[in-house]
């Protein structure tokens, strides 16, 4: 009802009787004026309620002074939901590796060997991605995996945070080392998506480890030894990388149930 409750009805409601209780209570939830009027009616007509209110107030007065209060929030709520704090140590480690690669590049200004930053770039996010969803690196993993929200969306959310931290850092390091971002961006995305897709099959930590190892042994080491930029990172390969990303993305979505965490223990990474 758009108008307010009549005084008579309020009086009846305050003493425990009353008609139209449904509408009265629904209205009272919305209307501060009628609550004030109800307070007045209670004071007049229901001594039991008044006594109760006073009694609780007295009890509260003592408790409130002694009671610990919640301090103001350190971080807004959404920060906690997007980036659990366990990711940060691993991201820091990634940054250190990048800094080391950059340092070596700057020392080697004559470009005897290909830029380390370029070689490391595709696998740089993998440590953070592994930490986003693995029993060893995420301490609360058991609880996360058992929760309703577990699934591809949550994994992607955390992966996005990793990328948002790692990719700009790579871009900065690349700029300092004289490497263009176009060269490594697509391979980087392909490896991230590939780790997720492979992780659906064998567990994310293993997948990240396998891919990082394969890249190091198969591409970085030969490239350093032969002092040539690997074919896979040449501009001509870029369209293939783009195609790979698309294919992996489709495979990822097709098997997304794997990330809801209901798996037999063989592949369950603790």
């Amino acid at each position, binding site marked *: 009802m758009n108008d307010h409750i009549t005084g008579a009805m309020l009086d009846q409601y305050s003493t425990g009787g009353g008609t139209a209780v449904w509408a009265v209570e629904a209205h009272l939830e919305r209307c501060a004026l009628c609550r004030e009027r109800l307070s007045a009616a209670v004071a007049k007509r229901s001594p039991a309620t008044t006594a109760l209110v006073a009694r609780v107030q007295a009890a509260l007065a003592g408790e409130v002074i002694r009671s610990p209060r919640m301090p103001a929030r350190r971080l807004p709520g959404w920060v906690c939901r997007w980036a659990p704090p366990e990711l940060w140590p691993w991201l820091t480690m990634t940054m250190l590796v990048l800094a080391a690669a950059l340092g070596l590049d700057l020392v080697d200004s004559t470009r005897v060997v290909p830029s380390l930053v370029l070689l490391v770039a595709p696998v740089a996010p993998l440590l953070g991605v592994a930490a986003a969803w693995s029993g060893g690196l995420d*301490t609360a993993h*058991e609880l996360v995996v058992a929760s309703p929200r577990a699934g591809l969306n949550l994994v992607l959310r955390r992966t996005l945070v990793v990328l948002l931290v790692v990719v700009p850092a790579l871009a900065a390091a690349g700029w300092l080392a004289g490497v263009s971002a176009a060269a490594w961006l697509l391979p980087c995305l392909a490896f991230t998506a590939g780790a997720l897709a492979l992780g659906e099959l064998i567990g994310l930590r293993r997948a990240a480890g396998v891919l990082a190892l394969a890249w190091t042994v198969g591409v970085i080491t030969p490239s350093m030894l032969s002092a040539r930029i690997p074919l896979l990172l040449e501009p001509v390969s870029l369209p293939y990388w783009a195609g790979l990303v698309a294919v992996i993305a489709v495979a990822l979505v097709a098997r997304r149930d794997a990330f809801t965490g209901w798996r037999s223990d063989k592949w369950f990474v603790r």
Partner: protein
Amino acid sequence: MVRTVSTAETEPANYGWVIQAQGLRVRAGRRMAVDGLDLSMDTGVHGLLGPNGAGKTTLIRSIATVLRPAAGSLTLLGQTLGGRMDLRGLRRQIGYLPQEFGFYRQFTMREFIEYIAWLKEMPTAEIPGAVQRAIDRVGLTDRADHRMKTLSGGMVRRAGIAQAIVNDPQILLLDEPTAGLDPDQRLQFRALLRELGTDTCVLVSTHLVEDVAAACTDVVLINAGRLIFQGVPADLAAAAGDKTGDGDSAAERGYSAIMRRHREKEA
């Protein structure tokens, strides 16, 4: 607050038992930790007892829908787990405290439990009230805004219980919840368990026979992945017969008597 009630909510329950396992076999590592288990549980507090390696944790993990069974059937709230099913609705009704309770050390207790509440897809407006209620129920009100890393072992465990009950689940799984609690806290915990048992199906896995005897409405003994006894605590104590065997209390004597008989039978 006024809300709408869906038709689905008032449909009559189509299941007899809240948790029902038939011929359940679950692998843990290389061996079959749960090996042909038949178990039915309804509302109340069920104490899960058994020696180390009996498969208690594996059973709890499979009910928490973390581990997929290798064979057999597991039915929770009338839904049989299997194939490609959407576990989200079911998981919203489950609360779980793992044996190795991992948490985010940098978070305050309130932030951590709020994060878990968000993971459990609780409506955002309800989260602060539910978190405060859970913290009050486990008795950690004055530590609510301290960081998790500053808490003692017993408090961490109680925070774990709080995150399990924050969404007022219908199925509550507690794996070794009393580890690290002093006797006074254990008493409070037992009172909380009895309160929860009035309308929730609680499964408590523990080594302490006394906890089970005091707070549980039902005792489940498993060994080597199979059920060897299920009954009320009085039956457990009665199983000792008149022998004064090992154990300081009737429940402990009953427990060792049953275990001994079972081993003799298996041998």
